[in-house]
């Protein structure tokens, strides 16, 4: 699971959970994988990211060093920022671990890189 994916996930599918965001990450195995740098794509999608959630997730997985705390104002032309965003959003990969609902503590397992957000019938 890449952190771009984590940025989109919430646990508000659970009955009674209102926001469920962002999910905490308990990492057990994190890998760094090469992904082609695509500045056009990054410039397009960064405004839709919740950057504080990106920073928190990066901290949870121990890859927040040197990560800008806020989106740079001129980010579309800021290569340094885009490269940092590229690395944190697309190259950090949580292979094994748990995602944790911030309201209930319910854990969603990540195995082989795939988060399992399925609920039991009584939870939905």
């Amino acid at each position, binding site marked *: *699971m*890449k952190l*771009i*994916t984590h*940025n*989109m*996930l*919430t646990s*508000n*599918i659970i009955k009674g959970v209102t926001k469920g*965001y962002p999910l905490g990450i308990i990492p057990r195995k994190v890998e760094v*994988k*090469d*992904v*082609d740098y*695509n500045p*056009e*794509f*990054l410039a*397009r*999608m960064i405004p*839709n990211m*919740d950057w504080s959630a990106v920073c928190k997730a990066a901290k949870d997985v121990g890859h927040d060093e040197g990560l800008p705390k806020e989106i740079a104002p001129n980010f579309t032309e800021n290569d340094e920022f885009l490269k940092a965003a590229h690395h944190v959003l*697309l190259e950090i990969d949580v292979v094994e671990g748990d995602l944790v609902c911030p309201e209930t503590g319910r854990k969603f397992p990540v195995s*082989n*890189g*795939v*988060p*399992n*957000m*399925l*609920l039991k019938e009584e939870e*939905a």
Partner: protein
Amino acid sequence: MAHSVMKLKELESYLQDVDGFEKPKILLEQYPTTPHIAACMLHTMHTRYDDLHDKLVADLGCGCGVLTIGAAMMGCGYVLGIDVDDTALEICARNLEEFEISNVDLLQQDVNIIGSGVRMHKVVDTVIMNPPFGTKHNQGIDMIFLQNALGMARTAVYSLHKTATREHIQKKAAEWGVDIEVVAELRFDLANTYKFHKKKSVDIEVDFIRFSHPRGKLKNR
């Protein structure tokens, strides 16, 4: 277009190497999108509408990943493949590894409840899907997929629906305030996917549809 476009035939021949379901599950209507249909769909999305290149794409009910992999090959920035079934996701992950595709993530999630479950409202550019037709035990599931897809997509949703349901879908699209364009009429050969298909091959007529949000009318999250 400035960037190079993968040729239709080339894409189709790559997609022939995507492994499909070993044991399709009837309840989930796991019939595969053929390499030919997948390639035609993706090629059209790219050349006619520029909805793939550098875009953020989600594939709802990705199955073994033929559309996900094809979309990545057509230059998507990132693709999120979502499926409820772990067997499908395992095969899909294996396919991604074999194709050495690294800008794709997979998510196990029930697409029926995804509209509320993912902080995804208008967060992807394009949604692609080959939804269950909702004809067996889950009538209406195609419309639930569609509604959730429209919630997630900023620009367009590409989907396949039985031609017999076209009028109903047009009515729903008008209700929801989205534009609808039947891009192509296809014949789907469900060639003995399941045991209850007694005939050798079952051709059904399917519409390849592009749904889009009218410009300037995008609802706020």
